[in-house]
């Protein structure tokens, strides 16, 4: 046990540059997927909150995507977007869509109606109301959605090599095929750490948003 731990550390230090490079690829894929998901998911959530009839359709569509097995989704996307980066990012985007859309929707729905009334009373237009009252008050919930999406995306991104993408999955699959456990750990441990770090970091951000929201409400 101690021996293999030693071997693991030796391997990791030997390959540090390579592993960092793979981690960087991994992070980029996840960030691109998340960015797309925020760009599309938040507006979708806003629209859903505003038009309840649409909400059902949008949320169940996002739900359907979520239950697709990830490998199957990747294989299908590969046919449309080719091998590698693009297909992986689109897959991560699709997986991140539900948590972000749903949380935006729920967040907007839970805004205290009296706040909205106050805004309307102050003569705000619906857009002003959205940007100055509803969205700021929903930020912590939205953040929770992004946090969840990030952790899922970091996990799914390890499948990238199967369709020609990069990232920490490279090490994992290379280790699996050559039956080299050290390589598997060298890919899996950093991926797990990334997920934990993302969870903690975004969790902190979420706490801060919550805290900063309170005095504003009291104002």
């Amino acid at each position, binding site marked *: 046990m101690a021996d293999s731990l030693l071997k693991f550390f030796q391997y990791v230090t030997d390959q540090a540059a390579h592993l960092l490079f793979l981690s960087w690829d991994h992070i*980029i894929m996840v*960030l*691109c997927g*998340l*960015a*797309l998901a*925020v*760009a599309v998911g938040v507006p979708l959530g806003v629209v859903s909150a505003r038009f309840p009839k649409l909400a059902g359709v949008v949320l169940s569509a996002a739900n359907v995507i979520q239950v697709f097995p990830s*490998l199957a989704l*990747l*294989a299908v996307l*590969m*046919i449309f977007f*080719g*091998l*590698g*980066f*693009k297909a992986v*990012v689109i897959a991560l985007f699709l997986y991140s869509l539900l948590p972000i859309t749903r949380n935006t929707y729920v967040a907007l729905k839970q805004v205290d109606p009296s706040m909205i009334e106050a805004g309307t009373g102050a003569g705000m237009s619906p857009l002003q109301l959205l940007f100055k009252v509803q969205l*700021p008050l929903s*930020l912590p919930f939205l953040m929770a959605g992004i946090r969840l999406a990030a952790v899922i995306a970091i996990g799914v991104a390890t499948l990238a*090599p*199967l*369709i*020609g993408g990069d990232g920490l*999955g*490279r090490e994992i*699959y*290379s280790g*699996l*095929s*050559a*039956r*080299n456990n050290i390589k598997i750990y060298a890919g899996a441990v950093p991926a797990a750490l990334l997920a934990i770090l993302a969870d903690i970091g975004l969790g902190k951000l979420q706490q801060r*948003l919550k805290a900063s929201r309170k005095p504003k409400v009291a104002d």
Partner: protein
Amino acid sequence: MRKRGITLCSLLLVGLSLVLTACGSGGKKIVIGTQNYTEPKIIAEMYKALIEDRTGLTVEIKPDLASSKVVIEGMRNNELHMATLYTGEVFNGYFEVEQTKDREKVLQQAQQGFSEHYQLKWFDPYGFENTYAFTVRKEVAQKYNLQNVSDLKPYADTMRIGVDNTWLERESDGYRAFQKTYGFQFKEAFPMQIGLVYEAVANEEVDVVLAYTTDAGLKQYDLQTLRDDKQFFPPFDASPVVREETLKEYPELEEIVSLLIGKIDADTMTELNYYVDVEHRSEKEVAVEFLRQLGLLE
């Protein structure tokens, strides 16, 4: 609040610009795709060494693609230029084929069909076959007196089998077709990464594994192969496959690709796989060493 908006927006922009920059790359590069097991990776390293040694081209290897279907799809889209494929692949529904177990005929169909429908040049084989084989632990073979696959029939409903990721879904040589030919099924079938099946059988987590015949695991775990007495599996001779367009663009490749044809027999391939899978040497090191032995590389 405004600050947050700005960070969000910049994150978005960074993401999008990265997506865009990632798309625009080119240059004189040959991309070799490989499936997710050692053998095609070693061969890819051989070609990388040979091509980079004899031409000004650079070679990139895309390892660990999910299946040969992904590899072929990648070649069709011009994202991969080259790969190692096995003749039995023709029976996986790419185009109409005649059902036959005749080696020559299968090869011929692969060469003709993939040229016609996919514009891929299927070269003659390297000289080894890597097919599926049912294998068991030696003591299991002795206990039940197993020699042929048919001998499993009376015991199969108590046995668990470990198979690779694609076998259960493969059409003509997969599990369903197998049940039709042999007339029995196993108690449970576990698909997994092929590298894991050997350990699974050694640890008695499964009783039978569907191995690849040139895999080092057979030797490493001293497994007994059962004879395919009903000739269920088609021949799986390995050949280099290259896009015809790529060959037109770089005619010098034809000769380099041909260098390995007829040069690797099954024992040699098993040994090379053994160096990587059991001795944990890198594919590249093993490939270069082999080329030096052949005198193809200084």
